């Protein structure tokens, strides 16, 4: 049987950002995620490992997951690099009273792209100090006109419509940051935003960064979960897989096993 053509190339190339020393790129897609049928670009999502500057986000599993190196954010970041992460997502909790210069040292010791998530004052101060590496700035509040330098700024969104509104008229490089707290729920906003980008809608086309770490709270609150490390890896890895199929360009991940799964899945889907 002779079949009709099913290829749907868009002819649009989405925005691409450069990170770190300019040696890491994200975005720049020209098709539905990974689809060779539509001429997909062979690029997998970048995987950023989460490093909070205080608090136990690992729920007591840190020694098992990071061999004790999670007690020192610099060492933790270096370990992320050693296990193959593409970047470090530094989470600075509100009211953090430590020395934020640790972020400078994370940049210089890992040589990886770094994202900084925290109060606008702290984020602006870091942006002003670090000039030899392109950061992703994730201010949890209004930057009130504080300069962002050459860095990329993330806008936190829950839906495609919100992302389009937030990014319309944005100057400089921007990424859309969305979160998932389930293995497959909440990805429609990413898919819609990718489609809007391929249709060249105003405010669309920026790279999408997806935070999969909220899934930890869901898993740890479930009754009857088995081995928590394995269960968390499966849930977070599967959430990353569904997010990348929905168009995630950057993944923020907490578990090293899940991050490894995400990288391997991304490589296979991108045919690398």
């Amino acid at each position, binding site marked *: 049987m*002779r*079949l009709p053509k099913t290829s749907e190339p868009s002819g649009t190339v989405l925005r691409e950002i450069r990170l770190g020393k300019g040696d890491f790129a994200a975005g720049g897609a020209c098709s539905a995620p990974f689809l060779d*049928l539509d001429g997909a670009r062979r690029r997998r999502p970048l995987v950023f490992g989460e490093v909070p500057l205080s608090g136990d986000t690992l729920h007591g599993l840190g020694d098992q997951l990071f061999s004790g190196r999670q007690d020192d954010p610099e060492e933790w970041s270096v370990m992320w690099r050693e296990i193959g992460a593409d970047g470090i997502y530094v989470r600075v909790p509100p009211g953090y009273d430590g020395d934020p210069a640790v972020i400078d040292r994370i940049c210089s010791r890992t040589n990886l792209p770094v994202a900084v998530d925290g109060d606008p004052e702290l984020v602006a101060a870091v942006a002003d100090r670090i000039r030899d590496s392109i950061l992703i700035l994730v201010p949890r509040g209004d930057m009130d006109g504080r300069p962002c330098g050459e860095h990329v700024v993330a806008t936190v969104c829950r839906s495609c419509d919100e992302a389009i509104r937030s990014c319309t008229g944005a100057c400089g490089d921007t990424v859309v940051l969305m979160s998932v707290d389930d293995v*497959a729920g909440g990805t429609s906003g990413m898919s819609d935003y990718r489609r809007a980008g391929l249709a060249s809608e105003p405010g669309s086309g920026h790279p999408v960064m997806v935070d999969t770490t909220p899934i930890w709270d869901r898993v740890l609150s479930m009754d009857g979960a088995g081995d928590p490390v394995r269960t968390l890896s499966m849930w977070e890895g*599967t959430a990353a897989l*569904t997010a990348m199929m929905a168009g995630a360009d950057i993944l923020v991940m907490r578990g090293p096993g899940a991050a490894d799964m995400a990288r391997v899945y991304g490589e*296979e889907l991108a045919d690398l």
Partner: protein
Amino acid sequence: MSGELEIGGTCIGGGGRPTIALSVTDILDTGSVAVRMGNIIDRTSGLESFDAVCIRNDSGSPDAFAETVAIVASLWSGGLILDSDDPAAILMAAGQLGDRRPLITMGSSPGDGMMTAGMLGCPVVVRSDSMEELMDLSAEASGAGVGVALDPAATNMKQCLERNTDLHRLATRIPEADHPVVTRAWSGEYALAMGTVSIVNHASLVILDDLDRDSCVVIDRVSRSMGAAHAEAP
């Protein structure tokens, strides 16, 4: 995708929640088949998507297959999938099922599969890694009045993504593609990943060899999320 099939009280396709099936082999002795079914029932309890069980004729023996199917059917009230390349084994096994209508899959001999399914009044899975051949088989089955599901024979996640998407798009253009899509995968974490890719990309039925309870919970959640998304879609 609007094509819908009914297998033993379970509907697959039609834009509803995807169905997942674990498998039982007929190389087990009768006691072990019952134990295996107990394991499947335990590890899928409370999970909505595990609506079917696949029985594989790995032994090559029609008698062993029929005996295994009879035990499974006595313990499982949901959908049944009979997987054999031997028409005689399928016919003998189907004889154990009364008025239950299983889904027939005969991977390496699709012509025999269609004929056997037609004799039994059951739907059939046609399988090919060539989209043209798959559409020919689909047309042939439909022409014979047999309900059909399509297995594009993906052996990895990438193929699964490409072929399921291709079928989904074809379904809007030609009727031969407008049938439930089936994916087969094996055991363990890669099977979980492949099943996830398939469900997210329009599969209606995922047949797996085996998964542990944790993986069953995860893939059930993916299936329910996609089912809910399909239900909300305009």
